[in-house]
């Protein structure tokens, strides 16, 4: 029914060679073939952002991208953020600020906001809300997520200043 291709992808720093159906989404590849189930599907039509991962640094919706399109690229998922038990400042801020309840939307939001903060080290609240408006969260009402992102910007600024 469906033809296959060999792909080679680096995911969270580890390289994988796999044969995949051409129609397999990147999200399914990560979840089903690599067992990286931290990436979630909330809509499978590109609206909710829960499936967001980073491909060569850019946040993309893994429900809309095919696995074969990631051939030769480097992918980061939520599993690749923390180093062992050490959370990144963004993850820590989410915990401090109660920016997650059910946590289902969280991986995609972390991925989206990590990219955003790299590009906007000193965002205003309005900037954060704008950047966040492509991700749906039904639990939190967003406020604590916004605060967590602002706190992270603050923390990162202080670390930079100290360095």
């Amino acid at each position, binding site marked *: *029914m469906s033809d296959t291709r060999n792909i080679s992808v680096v995911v969270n720093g580890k390289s994988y060679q796999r044969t995949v159906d051409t129609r397999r989404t990147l999200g399914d590849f990560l979840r089903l073939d690599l067992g990286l189930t931290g990436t979630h599907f909330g809509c499978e039509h590109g609206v909710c952002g829960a499936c967001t991962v980073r491909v060569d640094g850019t946040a993309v919706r893994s429900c809309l991208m095919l696995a074969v399109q990631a051939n030769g690229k480097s992918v980061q998922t*939520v599993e690749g953020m923390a180093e062992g038990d050490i959370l990144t400042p963004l993850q820590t801020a989410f915990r*401090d600020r109660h920016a997650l309840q*059910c946590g289902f939307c969280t991986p995609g939001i972390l991925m989206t906001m990590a990219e955003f903060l790299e590009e906007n080290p000193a965002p205003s609240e309005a900037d954060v809300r704008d950047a966040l*408006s492509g991700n749906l969260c039904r639990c939190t009402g967003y*406020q604590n997520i916004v605060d967590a992102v602002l706190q992270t910007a603050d923390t990162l600024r202080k670390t930079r200043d100290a360095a």
Partner: protein
Amino acid sequence: MMSEKSFGTSPKRKEDFDLLTGRGRFVDDIVLPGMYAAAFVRSPLAHARIKSIDASAALAMPGVHAVISHHDLPATLRERRLPLFVPHPTLTSRMQHALAKEEVCYVGEPVAVVVADNRYLAEDALHLVEIDYEPLAAVSDCKAGARPDAPRAHADLESNVVSRMLSSVGDIDAAFRETPHVFKEEIFQHRGGAFFMECRGVIASYDAVEGALLVYVSSQGPHRIKRALLDLFDLSDTQIRVVTPDVGGGFGPKGSFYAEYAAIAACAMMLGHPVKWIEDRRENFVATHQERDQYWDVEIAVDAEARIRGLRGVLTHDNGAYTPWGIVLPWISVATVPGPYIVPAYHIELRSVLTNKVMATPVRGAGRPEGVVVMERLMDRIAREFKLDPAEVRRRNFIQPSQMPYNVGVIFRDGKQVVYDSGDYPACQDAALQTIDYDAFRARQAEARLKGRYIGIGIGNAVEGTGLGPYEGAAVKVATNGRITVSTGATPQGQSHKTTLAQIAADQFGVSIDAIRVETGDTSKISQGIGTFAARTAVNAGSSVHLASVKVAAKAKAIAAKLLDVREEDLELRDGYVQLAALPGGPGAASDNARQVRKSLAELAVVAAGMPGFAMQDGAEPGLESTAYFTAPQSTYANGTAVVEVEVDIETGRVTILRLVLAHDCGMLINPMVVEGQVMGGVAHAIGNALFERMLYDDQAQPLSTNFGEYLLPLATDVPRIEIVHQETASPLNPLGIKGAGESGTIPTIAPIIAAVEDALSPFGVRILEAPITPQRIVELLGDAALGRTR
């Protein structure tokens, strides 16, 4: 080292580390050996007869293992319909089959299930299943459906009105006879669905050797799902285990038992392989329960001082095609209307109407926000008629704290009269008004209008029955290695139970919450359970954890007192030990001396477990453990006031929420951070309900909004910073003084948003008697008003 009391503090959540690092475990993350994937063939028509089903082409596809329709199901599923847990004498119930038999009654109703190696193949095959339907006339609008000449939602129904229930208090005729001030309103309300981010999902696995059915399901309570499966499959209690792992949001509809669960369990039993079904978002729009339409035709009688004398009317409720929750949802709406106000006479006829749409069952707030909108719209009407400040009208009608406990007289769905246990409603409103600087608002508004800006303010007050019975249990156990486990049937979907229940237990054991493991959502861990909905878990499960922990701690002390030869009352639990309590001014518990006079929980648990061949001491019950099922005598009532300031762009109809204050009283706060999180999420839900969320259907009940482009959820740019004011009135009805909080943000908040939009548009004479109020609709109403067509 733990010394502070944990109750009332906001420790970091136990749940977060896993969820932040991708280690959460949701149903779709579970993979069982040999597992197949399923996809459902669903009715494309709202009402039709099934003439034939031809699955041969689908079955011929490689990788497809089965296509199962009604006639292939095990006998019990062919004979029985899904069980109704909440019958009512006025209800003619209609329950669904696991797979439709001869007639389909809503778009999305499961007709057949395809099982294949994986989901891709199952969906390919889905399209090859050929079903011949004979279309039947469909009921789309519930008010039209209530007419005697309407087509029937099921071919054999005598009437689409499946329940008429009267709620009546006081002498309503006298109330309306004795005053000339009577105001009538027709209010239309629509609430959409839950739209949790994780769609539904289930895995069933059948062990033929043991005859054991294991079900993983994303639910709000595995025990009720097990109960339904017991009804449907004739297995014995120990043969079914239902487990709910991490859940990506529930908000009501994951508390239902669905046809798909029964069908998937049947597939697993028939095929001898585990079978997984994960709902996709399109299915979620058509097949997951939602709330929907209510028409309220009401009138209110007030005296010359604007005090309510009576309120009467009819509620016409769109129930959808079957009655899985009986009349629970509209009943709660009816019981909520009086709210914090004195309503001496009350008379509402509830008409629940079957339509050819997916079932309407409780969504966060469960019919309460609608009841609040009705009352608050009437309050604003009275204010307008009497030229009084809306806050003042409410003040004149509030139940006073001195009147507590206050019997409203209405019968709630637990069969008991609504009796408010505690709360200070005038103070709550005052607190909210002060925070938003209400008194200065009219000046702000006048100033804005000079600049061509239209701002408005609205008030919403609500009283919410929380902590609904019957119970939720907790088993607290200290293992022989000293580890403490709390198990409960309550099932979180983001409410942080693992943290808050650990906090309650931690206080009795004198340990940090990290030392306590909380197990939720597994029927094998505790025998009875109801589940998490209706803001009931903190009250019921929380109280049970407290009671069980107190018992276990007392037992530990009793054993330790004997072993150490000291008095029980001189002992305390701390950091995993039972030890001599610190004496004021004397040697502390940490001193060397005291340290020798102590026993670890592990040692005590070993003693409590007994030794083979030795009699238990003094006939004590074995084990350092206790199970408690706290039963509340009645619901405990939380209350809240939302005050909202909006700006309306009269060109585009866009509404911007400038400020939103929510003052609320949910009793004693176990964890303020968690409660605030619940409130903020609930408020966002109300914003969606007030301004965006609408399930659209055409006149043949064909759904028109089936993705997040057509159905809008509130975004980070739509939800303002929410200002929360806590009041804490301890509930007298449970040992911890807590009330429910999970819906307190949603319930009072739709009404004031609508009111604020109307207030902003008051120069145009626009009246709003509907929710949601979308930009298109606002522009339409402005146009009508310009043409002199106001209501």
